[in-house]
């Protein structure tokens, strides 16, 4: 359902490679079943033609990869960025995590990406091929004679259903429109949780977080988590934990992480996308974003390079800490 085609991207990449603008292309490479694409550095036109894919499963946010890729690669890298990825891109630049000159960013429009779990809930197991057909996906499985038709908009990732912006906030070149910031309902779910009683809320998170297997995928995919050594990996930190000893530690990991990315999280949605246990981690971060918006005025991390997040800035308009305390019952 993407407006821009795979061939257009391959052509663009190949021409930028051959005219020497870039030396490598960070793109998505073909998998086994149509949906399992893997990020890859392409260095030749042949490789691009053979393996580069752009389809409804290119959810991976490349911005974080630029930290390690620019560090290890001598030369300029072409990166294709969806609108949401450009916010992470800016945020990483704000934090001086990679050198801007080493990257050539091409903004590409995005109509939303598909959640394989949702897709499989409709089609069942045994997917062998996925084709696009207007507003639908035609999914061939080994169990059905005819391909199963699935409406694209019914199987979008949560983050895409609640897409906050189709605007590219960073690029060297655009393919398609710059796009607009759009209205989203992304805080609705947070409001529902706020409306719970403290006990209900505790039970909600207890249930979700107790399913965590501490694989760290959420942290490792998160563009705001780019510490050279995470405190949870550091044997010297005293809180290094590979497995949570109890439910307190389980929650501690997530709460510490949410605090650490507060004001820096762009709400890119990677944490929830990658979680093998389908834990709605984005809700924790969105709560912080919602609170920041309400307490200090609208703020979108990554909307521009160099902006000072309200939590690390001071203005005389800032509300008094006591006011936060007084407001705690407003929504209840």
């Amino acid at each position, binding site marked *: 359902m993407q407006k821009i085609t795979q061939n257009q991207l391959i052509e663009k990449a190949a021409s930028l490679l051959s005219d020497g603008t870039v030396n490598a292309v960070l793109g998505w490479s073909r*998998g*086994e*079943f149509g*949906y*399992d*694409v*893997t*990020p*890859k*550095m392409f260095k030749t036109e042949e490789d691009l033609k053979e393996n580069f894919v752009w389809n409804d499963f290119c959810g*991976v946010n490349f911005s974080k*990869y630029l930290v390690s890729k620019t560090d290890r690669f001598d030369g300029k890298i072409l990166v294709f960025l969806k609108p949401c990825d450009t916010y992470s891109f800016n945020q990483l630049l704000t934090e001086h995590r990679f050198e801007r000159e080493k990257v050539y960013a091409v903004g590409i429009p995005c109509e939303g990406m598909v959640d*394989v*779990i*949702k897709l*499989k*809930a409709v089609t*069942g*197991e*045994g*997917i*062998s091929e996925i084709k696009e057909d207007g507003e639908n996906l035609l999914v061939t*499985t*080994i*169990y059905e004679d005819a391909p199963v038709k699935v409406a694209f908009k019914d199987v979008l990732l949560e983050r895409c259903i609640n897409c906050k912006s189709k605007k590219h906030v960073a690029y060297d070149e655009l393919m398609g429109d710059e796009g607009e910031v759009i209205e989203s309902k992304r805080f609705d779910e947070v409001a529902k949780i706020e409306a719970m009683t403290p006990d209900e809320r505790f039970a909600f998170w207890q249930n979700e977080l107790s*399913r965590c*297997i*501490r*694989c*760290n*995928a959420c*942290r*490792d*995919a998160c563009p705001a988590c780019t510490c050279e*050594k995470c405190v949870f*990996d*550091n*044997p010297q930190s005293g809180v*290094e934990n*590979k*497995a*949570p*000893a109890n439910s307190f530690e389980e929650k501690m990991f997530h709460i510490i992480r949410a605090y650490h990315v507060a004001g820096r999280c762009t709400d890119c949605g990677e944490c929830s*996308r*990658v979680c*093998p*246990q*389908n834990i709605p981690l984005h809700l924790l971060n969105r709560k912080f974003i919602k609170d920041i918006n309400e307490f200090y005025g609208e703020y979108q991390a990554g909307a521009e390079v160099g902006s000072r997040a309200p939590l690390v800035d001071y203005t005389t308009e800032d509300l008094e800490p006591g006011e936060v305390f007084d407001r705690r019952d407003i929504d209840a």
Partner: protein
Amino acid sequence: MLKCSLDKINSVFEEIAKTAKLYIPADDKDGSAVYKQWENGIEWSSSLNTVRSPKDFFLPQMENLMEFKTEGKNIEVIDNRCETEDFVIFGVRACDVKSFEVLDRVFLSEPVDSYYASRREKGVIVSTACSKPSETCFCKTFGISPEEPEGDVTTWKTEDEIFFKANTSKGEALLEKLSAYTEECDETVVTEQKEKISAIMAKLPLKDLKTDAFGGGKTEEFFNNPVWEELSGSCLGCGTCTFVCPTCQCYDIKDFNTGKGVIRFRCWDSCMYSEFTKMAHGNNRITQKERFRQRFMHKLVYYPENNDGMFSCVGCGRCLSKCPISMNIVKVMKKIGDVDA
């Protein structure tokens, strides 16, 4: 061969749960499944398999090994072991049953890991043949039969019936207890079922994946292959693949200071983690390339070298569906082994 109507499955579960803790795959969020302890109301999931593998039953993600209390100059050693209960795991898939053999070869060879051993002894495994394999399944690559899984008891499920066959004395004892609900039958339906499964397996996208290129003695051949660089290039080092894998077995043993003593515990570790091989002299796996290579070389070369050619992947497909960047053992096998499939 015994059979029982699926209407009576709840009574069967109830009967088993009278004498042992019973765990079955139950529905979790969003169509995924998880092993839950059975109690009235918990239903057998129709999902193919659980996200977390059943290795937890024998090698829990975290377990206390022992405790030390200090008073003055005395140290008291406290036995806090808890792996003493009888339990039954029901509905285990063929791939996962095989994974127990992979783990056995590690934990039951000298020196025997007594924690693992007593759990293995207490546990009864009831397997279930797969009626709806996923595109990510490739158990056949490793010679595993989803038509007739191993285990203490093998079961086959049809629309309305379940068939049982005991393979061990533990299995026989379990079926003995269920005699009020089961009746003798011949193998006709099960044979048909097996043929159906074979027909499905022959249609799976990974059906032609072979292990021929791999096995013991291949370290030299693969270790310095430049392709590792590319394959590992996007790996996040998150360890999801190792934590969902039924055969990944690495662990760490640590001491937790309680203030009055120490609790010594063991927890899963992962070769994908940066501190995994950190030693007094430093770390011999400096980048993700070395860590990534280790995971796959272990499964495809080192383990078979030490275990009569047995591979330590069972083709369950968990790493295929759960890796955040869709990098996995199949992609590695195809690239490194140059296997066409």
